[in-house]
C-alpha cells in the first residue's frame, strides 16, 4: 500500500512518516510511505496524509505554491475518494475559510471555519498545549479501539468550527468543548497529533491504514 505525506514545507514530516511506518509494521502491512511535494506521486498514492503546523494562511500559501498539488489532491481525494487524513493545520485546511490573522479560503472540503480558541476561563493558556482527553461524539472506523477519555497531544490556538454538526466526531474540553476530530465520507482530520500521541495515536494511524471508506 502506498501512502503519500504531502510535503509543502510545513511541519515535522519525519515524525509523521515514522509513526505511519511503525503503525504499518505493527499491523503487518507492506507499505511505501512517501514524503512528497510531487503532485503526481500524491495523485497515484492509495492514501494521503496532509500534516501541517503553523498559521493557516502560511500553510495554505505553502500548499498552493506547489504547482498542481491542490488539483492533484482534489482529483485523488474528492473525485476518486481515496482515504485522506489531515493532521492539525492539515485538518484545518479542509475548512471553507480560515480566520487566523487574515481571512483565507481553505480547500472547502468540509464546511466550516477555522477560528480562534476562546476558552470560557480567561486564565487558560493559549496555545492549548499538552495532553487532553477525547470525547467521542460519533462512532467512526478511525476511532475504533480508542476509548472515551483516551489522551491525545494537542498544540494549537485555532480550531475547526464545523458548519454541519454531524461532521464533528470527537471533542476535548478546554474551557468549553473544542474540536478534536472531524470527518465525512473518505475525509478525516485530527486537531491533535496522532504521531505524537503514543499508543492512542498509533492506533488511529493503524485504523487509517486499514480504512475502507
Amino acid at each position, binding site marked *: 500500500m502506498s501512502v503519500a505525506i504531502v510535503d509543502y514545507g510545513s511541519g*515535522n514530516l*519525519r*515524525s509523521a512518516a515514522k509513526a505511519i511506518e511503525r503503525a504499518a509494521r505493527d499491523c503487518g502491512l507492506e507499505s511505501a510511505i512517501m514524503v512528497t511535494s510531487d503532485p503526481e506521486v500524491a495523485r497515484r498514492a492509495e492514501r494521503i496524509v496532509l500534516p501541517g503546523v*503553523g498559521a493557516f494562511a502560511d500553510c495554505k500559501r505553502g500548499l498552493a505554491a506547489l504547482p498542481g498539488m491542490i488539483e492533484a489532491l482534489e482529483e485523488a481525494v474528492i473525485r476518486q475518494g481515496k482515504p485522506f487524513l489531515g493532521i492539525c493545520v492539515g485538518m484545518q485546511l479542509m475548512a471553507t475559510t480560515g480566520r487566523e490573522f487574515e481571512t483565507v479560503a481553505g480547500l472547502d472540503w468540509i464546511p466550516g471555519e477555522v477560528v480562534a480558541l476562546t476558552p470560557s476561563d480567561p486564565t487558560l*493558556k493559549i*496555545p492549548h*498545549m499538552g495532553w*487532553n482527553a477525547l470525547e467521542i461524539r460519533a462512532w467512526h472506523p478511525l476511532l475504533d479501539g480508542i476509548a472515551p477519555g483516551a489522551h491525545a497531544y*494537542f498544540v494549537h490556538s485555532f480550531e475547526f468550527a464545523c458548519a454541519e454538526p454531524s461532521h464533528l466526531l470527537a471533542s476535548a474540553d*478546554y474551557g468549553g468543548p473544542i474540536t478534536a476530530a472531524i470527518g465525512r465520507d473518505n475525509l478525516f482530520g485530527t486537531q491533535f497529533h496522532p504521531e505524537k500521541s503514543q499508543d492512542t495515536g498509533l492506533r488511529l494511524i493503524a485504523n487509517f491504514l486499514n480504512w475502507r471508506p
Partner: protein
Amino acid sequence: MLKMRVIPCLDVTDGRVVKGVNFVDLIDAGDPVEQAKLYDIEGADELCFLDITASSDQRDTLYDVVARTAEQCFMPLTVGGGVRSIDDIRKLLLAGADKTSINTAAVARPELVAEAAEKFGRQCIVVAIDAKEAAPGQWQVFTHGGRRGTGIDAVAWAKRMAQSGAGEILLTSMDRDGTRQGFDLALTRAVADAVPIPVIASGGVGNLQHMVEGIRDGHATAVLAASIFHFGTYRIADAKAALRQAGIAVR
C-alpha cells in the same frame, strides 16, 4: 480537561547523556535514545534534550540522536542548547524535534523568535529563560548557560517573547537550579501570571511536593526535572501519583 505535564530533561553532550540514569534495566545507560524509550514507556508527557556542549563540530551527533529518538518515541520532543539560527531550527525539526528551545540567541537577537515563529509556527518555538533574583520580587535574565547577566528583567522579557511569537516559556531559576530546594515559586508565578502562553517550571526540584508546588502555587502548566529522574530517586509514575493526589489533573 488539559492535563498538567511532567517533562524529564536529558543533558546530552557528544551524543551521550551526561548525568547518567542508574536504571538497571537499560542496556546502555549513557545512550539518550535508550533513556528516551524508557521515559516514553513510563508515561512522560514530553521529553527535553539539552545539548550542553553545543559546539558546532558536534552538532551532527545531536541530529543523529534526535533522529534516532524520533524513530522510536511517539511523544513530543524539545531540543535546546546552541540553537542560534533559523537554519539550526530547521535542521532540528527535520531530524525529528517537535520544538526547539532558544535562549542566548533570543537575547542576542530578539527578532530571531519572531522570524522562527513565522516560519515554523509558534508551537515549536520555546523561549528558555534563565533568571536570577536581583532584588526581592525582581529577577534578571542570564545567558550563556547562566554565566552572563543581561540586566533584562525576566518578567518583562517573558512578556516580550510571548508577544514576539514564543509558544511556550521554559523558565529556569538559576538560584535554585541544582539545589533540590524546590522551584523559585515567586519567580514562576510572576512569569506565569504575566504571559498568556504556557510556562514550564524548571530548576530546583528535589522531591515530588516541589512539582505539586510548581503547578499549584507557581501557576506553571508543566514541570521539568532532570536529576530526580536521572538518579532514579523517583520515576515518572511517582510524580504523576503525587500530582494526582494533590488534585492536579494528570494523564
